[in-house]
């Protein structure tokens, strides 16, 4: 049995290695999927909204500076999507409803960004927005006509879009909140609109408090 001591030591080392591997591989046991890791990374990095030109459902073109001084609640979708996007935009509508109406457009603007600029032209967006009772003003739907700009925006916000065989896209979804200075400050679970609404109201309330 004289050889059992190194053996026990090796067992201990292996167990410690295992704990370290899983700790490191899951960001301290918090992120078991790449999606949760992505959200953690985004919240650390807090990217600013890149220079992007939008074209909205009314055919207007503008950049993110259009919303300067306001919070922007952003989602990424495409109108031909029949599954996740419907839920995503529907839940976005619930958040919109839950925010007091006097704040719409004054303190916060809702923006649904399509990543399918070929099909989602202003006419299509104009039709699509009516499905969700978006007014096209305080909740706008827009595409990014420039591919390079679109890819940069998706990249900055960690949105992964993979075309599938049937002309659709597989993509990850979340609610994004951009502060008045254009910095991404929060990424929220799109399946929990009530939680997201509470969070937005809390952040808006803070800003009011600060501003006096």
């Amino acid at each position, binding site marked *: 049995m004289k*050889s*059992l001591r*190194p*053996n026990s*030591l*090796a*067992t201990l*080392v*292996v*167990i410690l*290695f*295992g704990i370290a*591997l*899983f700790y490191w*591989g*899951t960001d301290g046991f918090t*992120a*078991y*999927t*790449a*999606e*949760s*890791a*992505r959200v953690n990374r985004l919240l650390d990095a807090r990217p600013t909204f890149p220079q992007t030109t939008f074209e909205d459902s009314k055919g207007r073109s503008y950049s993110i500076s259009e919303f300067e001084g306001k919070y922007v609640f952003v989602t990424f979708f495409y109108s031909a999507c029949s599954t996740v996007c419907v839920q995503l935009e529907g839940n976005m509508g619930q958040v919109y409803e839950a925010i007091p109406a006097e704040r719409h457009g004054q303190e916060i603007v809702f923006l649904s960004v399509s990543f399918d600029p070929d099909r989602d032209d202003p006419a299509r967006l104009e039709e699509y927005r009516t499905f969700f009772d978006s007014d096209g003003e305080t909740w706008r739907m827009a595409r990014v006509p420039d591919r390079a700009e679109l890819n940069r925006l998706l990249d900055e916000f960690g949105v*992964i879009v*993979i075309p*599938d065989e049937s002309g659709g896209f*597989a993509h*990850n979804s979340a609610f994004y909140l951009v502060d008045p200075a254009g910095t991404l400050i929060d990424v929220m679970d799109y399946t929990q609109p009530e939680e997201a609404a509470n969070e937005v109201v809390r952040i808006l309330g803070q800003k009011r408090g600060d501003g006096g």
Partner: protein
Amino acid sequence: MKQSVYGLVLFILLALPPVAGLMESLMIAHMHMQMPLLVASGFLMAKWGQIRFPRFWERWNANGVPGILLFAIVAVYWMLPRAMDEALAFPGMEAFKFVSLSLLCGMPLRDSWPKIGYAAKSAVIIGFTLLFAGMGLLYVIAPVQLCNNYLLLEQIALGWGFLTTAFCMVIFIIYHVFTRHSAYE
């Protein structure tokens, strides 16, 4: 010694960019072909390690427990959806996948398996059967995409792959329990 060369050839073959790219393009091939083959390459190469460093294995893996634990930890780690995504996203993780599955998973398995007792072997087989069944159910039932790099349909295919493997392992266990081994030994 010959089989170690086969193991090395298998490893190099798997590491060739076109082969790796092809296998990783399909989720189920990534997890159920590439990863087990990497373990197999380490398993074959282990012979060389055992001949070359017999003292090392005798000393540090005397009863086989450290080796089998290392095997299990590394194998379970690579079943995390995130680990698979990151292997595709970061070249460093991809390299770690190749090295860890062959050297830290296949090699210790080879050395440990004959050393550990019947109870430990049963625990490993039953443990992995339950784990495969659990992972299979997770991938089949999960309504959300767990991996950013693969489509939901591929995820469901992977889930059924896991369930099939678990099913085969259950058959093996039943067969093992209901055969009188003494009659054949």
